[in-house]
């Protein structure tokens, strides 16, 4: 993770892509979202969706996993070049989550994140709060996921001392 001071509004990164197989769609749904159109091809064929599709929570969880893996790769590169790596704190939550199109079995979703806002934390001087718009787009260019997240990001020591 970059330090709070090194991040800019508008910074955008493609964090990775994931192909949703029928097997993993069903396994996730059986665990957390057991609705027929996420569990069974025949039931899905008779539903609004017409075909087996992933739980929206599954689509969102893959954003999280790819975001963590993306950050891990970036941190490894920074460490290899002798740079310090900032800590990422917890997230207070998210808003405006949308699932504008279904993710069908076999679809590949490309995930991205873009920084919307940066502000120092009023109550925790060692942290800043980063707000970002996160998206998922399928192989046809159609949006399948968007939400606005916030997370605490570590500030540089000298910046904290000044504030």
């Amino acid at each position, binding site marked *: 993770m970059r330090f709070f001071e090194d991040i800019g509004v508008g910074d955008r990164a493609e964090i990775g892509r994931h192909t949703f197989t029928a097997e993993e769609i069903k396994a996730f749904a059986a665990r957390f979202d*057991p609705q027929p159109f996420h569990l069974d091809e025949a039931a899905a064929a008779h539903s609004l969706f017409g075909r087996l599709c992933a739980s929206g929570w599954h689509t969102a*969880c893959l954003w*999280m996993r790819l975001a*963590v893996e993306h950050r891990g790769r970036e941190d490894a590169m920074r460490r290899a070049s002798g740079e310090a790596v900032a800590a990422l704190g*917890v997230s207070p939550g998210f808003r405006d*989550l949308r699932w*504008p199109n279904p993710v069908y079995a076999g679809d590949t979703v490309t995930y991205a994140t873009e920084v919307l806002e940066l502000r120092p934390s009023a109550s925790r001087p060692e942290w800043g709060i980063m707000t970002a718009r996160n998206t998922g787009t399928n192989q046809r260019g159609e949006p399948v996921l968007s939400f606005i997240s916030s997370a605490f990001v570590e500030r540089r020591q000298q910046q904290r001392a000044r504030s």
Partner: protein
Amino acid sequence: MPQRHWEDFSPGSVFEFGPRLVTRDEIVEFASAYDPQPMHLDEAAARASMLGSLAASGWHSCCLLMRMLSDSFISQSHFMGAPGVEEVRWLAPLRPGETVRARATVLETRPSRSRPQLGFVRFLFELLDSSGARVMTLTVSPMFARRRAPYATRGGALC
């Protein structure tokens, strides 16, 4: 049991779900698959983090709530899904061994303008720990089928 339609929800109604035990194993398993940050996987790393000790991914809380609703609520209503979620707030860490409950409060109801056979119900869901403290709140407006479609419906498929 009769299945709930959109007309059966009114502002101020409260529904409760659970209890549900959340184990350390499932916290670590979920995090390994979907949120592999050390603070959700490893006790020592969690102690050094803002969480202070091991706690579940916030996404895990969302998924647990979804499952609790599926088991006791969605299966008893003409639930037609939700196009999104208005807001989620993660207010307190969800620790291993905690037993959670959920509470749903109806905030408002409105008919769908474009689909007369459906209506929206705006809910505040609260995930509560065993002391009654709020771990998470989630605001969402799912769709439910209406019992009686109004006159001049367009008919046909729901979507």
